[in-house]
Each structure stands twice: as C-alpha cells, then as structure tokens.
C-alpha cells in the first residue's frame, strides 16, 4: 500500500485515495471544434509511461481534493506531489526525497 503525501493532509495510506489517471490532460475548451482523431486522442491516448509518470490522485477518503503526483512506475517510488494548478517545480526543495522510498 503506497504512502501518498496529500498536499493538504500529509502522508496517507493509498486506500484513502482514488487513482485519477494521467495528469495534465486538459479537457479541450471547445470539443466540437476537434476532429475525431484529436478527440480520440483526448479521450483515450495515454503516455502509459514506464518511468516517471505524472498522474492524478484524489484523497477521496480524506480531504476529497484532487492533486498531482510524480511516481516512478518501475519502482513505485513517489518523487513529488503537488496541487492542481501548481507546477511540480514549485514544490519546495525540502519536500523532495533524498533517497528511495516514499515522500514523507
């Protein structure tokens, strides 16, 4: 069970969260203007990254907020978590892991 650091509540066990898929896929502002290809891309195409993956989680059994996580999908190590709308770089240095394991 992963230990995920909610930007609002701090480190919490995975079962309190719901996984929300790849992060930073913005819903098109005007979907009707997209052709089928572009719309399918939005709906279905995913990076499915092997390595550092940006993804959304929702602290559904906690503060109920969505936020973003960067996780290495090979080791399951979480590198950083950040709020919706924030850039991961804005995350203070002190919160970054120095070695393996979860962010704490």
């Amino acid at each position, binding site marked *: *069970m992963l230990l995920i650091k909610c930007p609002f*509540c701090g480190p919490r*066990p995975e079962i*309190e969260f719901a996984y929300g898929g790849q992060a930073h896929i913005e819903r098109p502002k005007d979907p009707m203007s997209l052709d089928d290809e572009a719309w399918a891309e939005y709906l279905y195409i995913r990076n499915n990254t092997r390595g550092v993956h940006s993804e959304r989680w929702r602290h559904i*059994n906690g*503060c*109920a*907020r969505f936020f973003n996580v960067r996780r290495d999908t090979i080791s399951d190590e979480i590198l950083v978590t950040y709020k919706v709308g924030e850039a991961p770089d804005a995350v203070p240095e002190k919160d970054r892991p120095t070695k393996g394991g979860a962010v704490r």
Partner: protein
Amino acid sequence: MGRTAVARVNSLAQISRGGPEVAEASLSVLPDAAKFVFRGRPSSWPVAAEAFGVELPQAVNRFSVKGGRKAYCVGPDEWLLEAVGEDPGEIFHKLSESLASHSCSLVDVSHRSDTFEIGGTRSEYVLSHGCPLDLSEQQFPVGMCTRTLIGKSPVILSRTERAVFQIDVWRSFSSYVWGLLDEVRREFPSRSRQM
C-alpha cells in the same frame, strides 16, 4: 393539524442495545445533532464562523468546539458544523440569512450520519483494526479529525480525549462500523451489560 411530529430514530439504536461491556474499549452512541456541510469561497468563511458562533479551523483536519457546537475542517474549503441537540431548521435559516450575499454552499446533513464514541485504554488499538491511520497521540492528537476509512466504510474520525475517539458515520454504514469494532474487541474479557 396539531399532531405530534414523528420521532427521530438513530441508526445505532438497535445494535447498541444490550451489547457486552468492555472496559478496554467501550462503545456508546452520542446524542443526535444538527449537522451542516459548509463550503465556499474564502470571503464567506468568517461570516459562517461568526453566524455559527464557532471558529472555523483553517487547518485541514482540525476541529474547534464551543459549548455544544463544533466545526470540523475536513477539507481545505469544507467544514462539518455540528450542534448537539439543536433544531437543524433554525440554524440553517439563521446561517443562510447571514450568508445570503456570499458565494458558498450550506447543506443540512443532520440525518446523514450518526455519531458514536469509542473510549478506553485500548480504543486506539481496537480502532486500528480497520483504520489505516497512525492514531498515536503524536500523529493524531486531541483536536484532530479527518475523513478516513474503518474497514470498508468511510467515516469522520476525531479524537476528543486521549483515549476517546468519535466516529461520525453515514447511517447505512453505522452498524457495519460498530459491528467491526465490536467484533475486534471480543478479544477482551467482557461482562454482559445489566439491562
């Protein structure tokens, strides 16, 4: 019409009756309360606090108390307001008036959940069968509250005293959560309760 209103029934009324008494972890149902979910833009927060008469904690997962009223901060813009033994209608009315010109949401959830308490030297131990959080006093001090899980049920858990926790649980899940904790505390010696 003059008829008396039908009585409110607590979802734990049945299950809490006649169970065993376990000193290490006693379970008891708390009185009904008026409850509201308040959410809104920051400008509305102080207004709500003022109207409700209890400070709204700004730190997520903390609650504040004043008299029989409590405000639990369960999300960055979400509070559960609780007034034990009061009439929800009146409070709702009063708060709505104060908040009328503010961008926010107030919803009466007085009947959504019931609350019970677990107390005793082993309450933390019993709760940790099902609750995945670190319930030690350092990590979960008195004054803390949070939505979390107990087994397969969502709850709002708060610590009111060193060895006392309150569990606010949606009505249809309440007998499950109670039953789970009751099953766990069976490992302690119990006396059957004098009826």
